[in-house]
C-alpha cells in the first residue's frame, strides 16, 4: 500500500524558502522554480552539486541565493563531485567527526545539456556505483545558458541557434530527443520521475517519495524558458501545463524499474496548441503551415500514449491527425 503523502493541494506547498530572491536568472525561469520546489521538500540540509549551465548564474559571487550549500563543477563531472561529497560525509559520520544529524543530502543539479550529453558517462558511472544521491535535471530542451543551441534533449521541430529553420531544413531540428528516463531505467536505480512545476502537487509528492529510497534518484523537470522558447515570462506555468495536457511531457515515475504514469490526461489536447504559443516553433506556422511536421509530432505523441494505455490499462482519447 502507498504511504500517505503530506502534499495534497497547493496549500500544502511548504512555506519555508531555501532560496532567497535577487539571483541573476531570467525573470520567469522555469528551471529556478523547479529548484525552489525541490528544495522545499528536501529541507535545508542539502549540498547542491551544480554542473555548468543556466543554474550556475543563479549565483553571482559573492551574492548567493541559496541558504544551503553549493559546489560548482565542470559540465561533465557533477556526479563525480557528488560522489566525493557523499564519501566525505559518510567517512566523517563514521569517524564520529560530525553528528548523524548533519547527514546532508547530495543533489546534483544540471541542465539538459549536462544530463543528456556531456555528463552522461559520469552519471552512468555514479548510478553503477549505486551512489546515494538525487539528480535533478531542469530540462529546457537546449543549451539555454549560451544562447539556446541544440542539445540531445531538443525536440523535433524546434528551431535553436544551431538548428534554425532554413530552406534546406525547414523543420528546424530533425533529431528526436534522447529518452533519458529509459537510459536511467536501464541502469536499474530505485527511483526515477519526470516533473513539471505546473503540476506542483505531483512534483512535491514525487520528491517526497524518492527520498524514501537509498541510491540514485533521477528527476527530470520540464523547465519553461521564456528567452529560448520565446514566450512572455508570465506564461511559464501555462506552457509547462500545456506540455503535460497535450501529452508531449508525460508525468511518470519508475519505482524499482516499474513505470507508472501519475498524471493521465483523459483526452489529449492537440500538440498544435502548445507549439503555436512558442517562437521556437513559429516556422511551423508561418509563412506556410508545415502540416507534415506537426502531424509527425502529433503521431509520435499518440503512439506513445497508445502504448502506455495498453500497458497500464487505462483509456485515453487521442487527437485525430
Amino acid at each position, binding site marked *: 500500500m502507498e504511504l500517505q503523502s503530506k502534499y495534497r493541494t497547493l496549500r500544502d506547498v511548504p512555506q519555508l524558502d531555501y532560496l532567497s530572491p*535577487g539571483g541573476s536568472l*531570467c525573470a520567469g525561469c522555469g528551471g*529556478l522554480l523547479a529548484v525552489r520546489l525541490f528544495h522545499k521538500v528536501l529541507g535545508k540540509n542539502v549540498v547542491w552539486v551544480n554542473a555548468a549551465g543556466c543554474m550556475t*548564474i543563479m549565483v553571482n559571487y559573492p551574492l*548567493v541565493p541559496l541558504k544551503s550549500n553549493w559546489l560548482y563543477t565542470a559540465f561533465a563531472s557533477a556526479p563525480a563531485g557528488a560522489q566525493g561529497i557523499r564519501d566525505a560525509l559518510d567517512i566523517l559520520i563514521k569517524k564520529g567527526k560530525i553528528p548523524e544529524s548533519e547527514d546532508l543530502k547530495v543533489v546534483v543539479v544540471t541542465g539538459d545539456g549536462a544530463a543528456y550529453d556531456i555528463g552522461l558517462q559520469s552519471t552512468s558511472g555514479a548510478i553503477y556505483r549505486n551512489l546515494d544521491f538525487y539528480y535533478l535535471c531542469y530540462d529546457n530542451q537546449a543549451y539555454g545558458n549560451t544562447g539556446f543551441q541544440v542539445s540531445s534533449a531538443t525536440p523535433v521541430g524546434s528551431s535553436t541557434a544551431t538548428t534554425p529553420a532554413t530552406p534546406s531544413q525547414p523543420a528546424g531540428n530533425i533529431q528526436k530527443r534522447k529518452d533519458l528516463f529509459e537510459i536511467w531505467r536501464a541502469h536499474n536505480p530505485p527511483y526515477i520521475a519526470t516533473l513539471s512545476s505546473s503540476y506542483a502537487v505531483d512534483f512535491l509528492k514525487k520528491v517526497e517519495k524518492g527520498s524514501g529510497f537509498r541510491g540514485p534518484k533521477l528527476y527530470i523537470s520540464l523547465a519553461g524558458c521564456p528567452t529560448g522558447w520565446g514566450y512572455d515570462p508570465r506564461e511559464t506555468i501555462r506552457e509547462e501545463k500545456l506540455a503535460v495536457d497535450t501529452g508531449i511531457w508525460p508525468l511518470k515515475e519508475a519505482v524499482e524499474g516499474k513505470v507508472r504514469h501519475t498524471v493521465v490526461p483523459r483526452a489529449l489536447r492537440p500538440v498544435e496548441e502548445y507549439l503555436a504559443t512558442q517562437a521556437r516553433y513559429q516556422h511551423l506556422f508561418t509563412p506556410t503551415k508545415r502540416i507534415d511536421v506537426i502531424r509527425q509530432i502529433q503521431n509520435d505523441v499518440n503512439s506513445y500514449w497508445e502504448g502506455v494505455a495498453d500497458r497500464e490499462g487505462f483509456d485515453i482519447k487521442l487527437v485525430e491527425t
Partner: protein
Amino acid sequence: MIIRVRFHGRGGQGAKTASRILGTSCFIEGLNVQDSPVYGAERRGAPVTAFTRISDEQILERGYVFDPDLIVVMDPTLLDSPAARVTDGIRKKGVIFLNSPSVTHITKQNIASDFRLVNFDLTNAAMEMLGKPIISSASAAAAARLIGMVKESSLEQAIETELEEIGLSEETIEKNVLLGRKVFSSLEPVELMTEESSRELKIAPLELILEGNGLEDITAAGNSSVSRTGSWRIFKPVVDYEKCTACTVCYAYCPESALTLRQDGKPVIDYDNCKGCLICYRECPPKAITLEREVVAF
C-alpha cells in the same frame, strides 16, 4: 568629430538592437560607425548596456564608452539601479534621453554635472504599435533624431535590415518602422557639444558594490537579496486584498521566492526583489493581482 552614444536598457528590451540600428542608419549616411553591447552574467530583465560610436573620420577608440555625449535610458527604473550606473561619465552639456511618461518627478540633484534632459514615452508608443514593451527601434529612432545626422529614410532602411537579420516577420518589421517614424517625427535634434576626435585614455574606477566588511556578506547564506532585482520590472504586480482568497497559487508558482504569505495566507510581494515576471498575475484564479506601469526615478 566623434559622437559617443550609450544605451541603457534591460535584457529583452532591445538595447543591443537599438545600438545596431543606430549604427547602421549612420553607416547608410556614409559615416564610420562602431557598435557593441555588454551583458553581465544576468539575463532577461537585467541591466544591459550598448555603445555606438559615430564619426566622419576613422574611429580608433575601442571598448566601453565612459564619457558619452548622448545617453539613452530605455527604462526609467534604471536610474535607481546601482548596477546600471546610467549617468556615469556624462559629458558637460551632454544629453540624457529618458523613456518616461513625465519628467516632473525627476530632479537633477543626483547628477553632478550639467546635462540636458529630453524625454518621450517610448514604452507607451511601443505598447500602442506592437502590443509589447520592446523598444529597440523606438530607442534607435530617438537617438538617430537627437544626433541630427540621420535622414528618416536611412533610419527606416536600418530598422528593416537589422530586424530582418534577427528573423522577425514582415508584419512586425513594418510595425517597427511605423513606430520608428512616429518617434522620429516627435523629437527635434539637439546640438551635441562634441568637438575633438580623440582624448585621454580613461580608466573606469573600480568600486566595491558591498559596503562594510565583505567577508560577512559572503558567508551569510542567501545574501543575494541585497542585489535588489526589483529594479528589473517594467510592470508591477499589485495585490487587491479584498479580492484575494488566500488560495496560495501565486506563492507556489513564484520562481524567485519574492512572495511570502501573511498569517491569513494572503501574499506579500517583496518589491525590492520581484523581477516582474508576472506569473502571479497570470495564474491568480480570482484575478486579485493587477498590473501597474512602473515609473520611478530618483
